[in-house]
Structure formats: structure tokens, C-alpha cells
């Protein structure tokens, strides 16, 4: 894993973002036929909640 990717993942982890879960859920959403708008709503919900409330 590159140093850059590690830094990005660490910074997101500190912000309370579970990247594995996020990637899995977004891909699964698209594979089930979800649209770009659904992806946007999902990410918006994620960043609009306070740090600590994210799971």
C-alpha cells in the first residue's frame, strides 16, 4: 500500500469514516441498480453527520 493511500486512510479514520464499509456499501448500491444520485445522497448523509456519529 502506498504511503499516500495510507495517509489518506488514516486521516479518514480519524474523521470517523469506515472506508471498507463505505466502499462495500456504495458498490453494492450501484450493483443493485442504484444511481449517481443515490450515491450522492449516501455520501451527503455521511459527511453531514458529526464526527463520532459516523459508523
Amino acid at each position: 500500500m502506498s504511503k499516500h493511500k495510507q495517509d489518506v486512510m488514516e486521516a479518514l479514520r480519524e474523521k470517523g469514516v469506515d472506508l471498507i464499509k463505505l466502499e462495500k456499501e456504495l458498490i453494492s448500491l450501484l450493483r443493485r441498480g442504484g444511481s449517481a444520485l443515490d450515491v450522492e445522497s449516501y455520501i451527503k448523509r455521511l459527511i453531514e453527520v458529526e464526527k463520532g456519529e459516523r459508523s
Partner: protein
Amino acid sequence: MNEVKLILENIGVFKGKREFKLSKGLNVIYAPNASGKTSLIAGLKAIAVPTLTLEELKRTLNDYEDKGRVMLLINGSDYVVELSRRPGGSIEARGKRLSEDGVIKKVAFVDLENELVNAVYGGDEERVKQVLRDVTGISHLETIVNVLEGMLREYEYTYEKKRKEYESRKEEIELQIKEVEARLDTVRKRILEILRDPSIEPVREEIEQIEKDREKLENELSRLRSEEIGFENKKAFRERDHREIIAQLEVLVKEREDLAEKIKEIEEKIHEYKEEIEHRQEVVKKLESKKRGLEDELREIIRAIERRKGVRDYAMCPYCGASIDKNRLEREIQELEERRSQIRERILGLDEEISRELAYINELKQICEEKYESSRKRLNEVNEKISTLERDKRKVEEELKYYEKELTKIKVATEDIEKRRQILDKRLELLRKEKPVALLVDELRRLQSEESYLRESHDRLYGRRMQIDQMHKDVILLEDKVKTLRLLLEYFKVRLDEVQRLAIDEINATILKYFKLLKFAELEYPILAEDFALTLTRAGGTPTTLAELSDAEKAILAIVMLLALNERVASDFPLYCIDTLIEFVDDTRAKDVLKYLMEMARKADKIIVVTKTKPYTGEPAPLTQEDILMNEIPI
């Protein structure tokens, strides 16, 4: 998982229930055209994946049935899908399927509806690239990256806008606070300076006393003004009442005059009516006298009739004894009876005439009395009203006089106060002229007032600065969101790059595994470039394109590529079905391809189902279990 049971009910060409067994390894459905090979694959597809198109569903359910069912028993688990035709013609499929992942259909069912097969047969290399990106999930990652880029732009724009707004407002407030503080400092210094002057105090006291007196006068003036307004209002109301009373009086006086005129007219008419009544009464008397005459005559006739009837039966007159002419007597009786009837009729006619006259007399009397009485009554009412209104008018006039008096008093008092105020103003002016320190007192007072105003402004500005601080918190939050979005975008870009490289490497490596199969298409090992572009080379090294391949070569290439994709994204899915494509390959090569697939199925622990048309031998017959060759090559 050595044996798999598939039950089809009203599926494709099959009417009713059919049961088939499939085995681990290669299953070649070897039967003539229209026997149900594709129907069996359609049944497998319906039980395997959820993303069937409407056309696929229509082909799956038997055309003459409204309900169908597919059951699959595999690895000890049951899967059932119910199909039903809806009123609009669409087909609904419900139940438990082998997989809920939409990508399975793209890599496990190699038929003419498959996207990659279509792209290969269309010679469309761009579409091939797109299918590969979709199947490997690259297009999904690209979608996520695109969404994040759009969101980042939007959030950055909002953040910049809010930040600039915050900074400009903060700068403005800070500047205002500085200005107010500087002025406050100057004012305070000057106040202290003035207060240090010892001569200022006696003058200040005198000025303050004058201003206090002046303020008292102002208060008194204000009270008088308010009283004046009150009286003016009351006066205005009463004046309005007075005007209304006069107007009403005018109307009533006119009505009284009219009524008096009307009564006079009625009195004059009463005389005429009385003459008419007397005349009518005279007529009645005459009629009654006439009636009495007729009644006397009637009585006489009745007596004469009775007398004649009394002697009619005797032979002679009872008085003189002379003989009686009976016929003459009868005639006389008859004449008298006729006369009696005539008189009776005339009496009745006179009765009617008398009644009419009496009724008319009563009517005349009634008219005279009613009209006269009602006019008299109304006249009395009007007179009463006029008296009341005149009383009210006098009362209002008295009140108006009182208000006038009070207003004059107020006017006098106001003039007096204004004079006293002018005297105070002159004293103040004189003081300022005679004692220059008085000007300092004025300045002190002005500065103290300014200091108070500046303090208030300062407090207000601090309040606004606190609001701006809240705005700053929002900006910080927005900045944090922008940072999160940047990080997410970075992460998904890295992942896109990683997954793309990994997918290409893996697909290339997998295709290499099926190198032998590719040889049947007379192709060298094709390589996917970094952007999923397909590089095709003929055996011998000549580069070629999809469009230049024969149908058989295309079929083999599609089978290989889908095997590679299946291994990458559906390695756990137990089925791999090839429908129709083998038909495009000549028997010699088809035999080799099937042998290869049989070998591969054994290694991968998969159930590979392939359809192959059996030459027509006679009557068409539906597919049976005997038509499914397990791990056996039919050609």
C-alpha cells in the same frame, strides 16, 4: 454437489411440470430445434438471478399459461421462483434465488442476450470495454469518483462564499468597533478635562436648575396639549351629533307639516263621505219600504189563494149559495200562485240590493275612520320625536359651550407657560453670553450624552461580533466537510487506479489459463490494455480486430472472456451456461471446445450447461432427461 434437480412448471415450451437432473461437470443438452433447450436455460436464469428484463421474463413463462414456477435443488438447498402474468401483460417473478447479485447474469449466462456476447458479435470494441468496466466494478468506482468530484466542487464553492462573507463582515465590524472605541476614548478624556475645571460647577448647577424648570414647563405644556386634544375630540363628536339632530329635526318638521295637510284633506273628505253615506242610507230606507209593500201584497195573495182553495171542493158559494165555476177558480188560483212567485223573487232582489248598499256604507265609514286615525297617530309620534330631539339639541348645545369654555382656558394657560419658557430661554442665553464657562457645561452635557450613545453602539457591535463568531463555526464545519470530501475523492481515485490495474492483470492472467481454448479460434493470447482495450492477434502474429473475426471465432472468444470474468467476479457461483453459441462453431472445433469445458468444469467444481442442436430425425419431441448428456461429448 454431484446432482442438481431442476423442476420447471409452465416454463418456455413446457406445459405442466417437467423435472431434469444436472450433474457436476459438463451437461450438454443435445436435442433438435424447438424441443426446449433454451427454455431450460431460461428456467435456470430465472432461478439464478434477479435482474431479468421484461422480454426475458415473457420468454420464460409459457405463452398459454398465467402462472409458472421454477424450483432448483442444489447443495441441499431449495430455491423457488414463482412467475405470474399481470393484467397489463407484464410478468412478475418472486421467490428465493441462487444469487441477488445483478452481475451474475452478465458472466454466468453466455447467450445471445448477454451484453458481452452482443458486443463481440457486433464487433463493437468500445462496448466490450464498457462491459468489462461494468463487470469488474470499475464503472461503479468511476461513478463514485464523478459524484465526489461534483460534490467537492459544490462544497468548495459554498465554503469559499461563506468564508469570504464571514471575513468581509468580520472586517467591517472590527473596523466599526475600533472607530467607536477611539471616539469613546477621546470623549472620555475630554469629559475628564472639563470636569477638572473648578469654575464649572456653580454655572452647571444654575443651568441645570433652569433646565429643570424648563422641563417642568414642557411637561405642563404636554399635559395641556393632551387635554386640549381630548376636548377637541369631544367637541368634534358633539358637533357631529348637533348636525345630525338638526338634520333629523328638519325632516320631522317637514313630515309634521305634511301630516297636518293630510289630516285637513281627510277632514274635508269626511264631509263628502258623510253626505254619500246619508244618501245611501236614504236609498236603503226606500228599498226597505218597497220591500214592506211587497210583503203586504204577498200576504194578501197567500190569503186569497187559501180562500179559493177552501171553496174549490164545494158545489156552491158558502156565503151566497150561488153555484161555483170550478175551472175559473182553478185558473184564479194558478194566476195568484204565479203572482206570489214573482213577488217573492222581487223581495229577494230587494234584499240583495239593501245588503250591497249597507256594505258600501260600512266601507265608506271604515275608510274615513282609518285614514284619519292613522294620520292623527303618526302626527302625535312626530310631535313627540320633535320634542325629544329639541331637548337633545339643547343639551348638546350646552355641552358645546362647556367645551369652548374649557378650550379657551387651556389656550390661556398654554400662552402663559410659553411666555415663562421664553423667559427661561432668555436667562439661559444671557448666562452663556455673560459666563463663557456655560459653553463648557453645554459641551460636557453633549459629551456625556455622546458617551452614553457610544457605549450602547459598542455593546451592539459586540453582539454582532458574537453572531459573526457563530458564522465562523459554520465556516469551520464546512471546511471540515470539504476536507473529508477531498480525502474521500483521493481514496476512491487511488482505489480506482488499484482495482483497474488489478482487474486487468487478473483478467489477463485468467485468459492466459484458457490459452488452449483460444487456439481453437486461431487467436494468440489477447491482452487487455490499461484502459480495458482488447488487443487481438492472429496465430502467427498478425494484429486483427473484432470485426474481422468469424462467427465461430467470436463465439470462442466470448466464451473465453466470460470464463475469465466469471472466475474473477463469480467464482463461488456454481453455474455457467452457454446457449446457442456452440451452434456457430463447426463440429470438429465444437467437439474440442466441449472437451475443454468438460475438463475445466471438473477442475473448477462447476456445473457447465451447454446447448447443442441435434440433427432433425423425425417427429419433433419435447426435451427429456435422456437428451441431457452428462460429461459426455455428443459429436
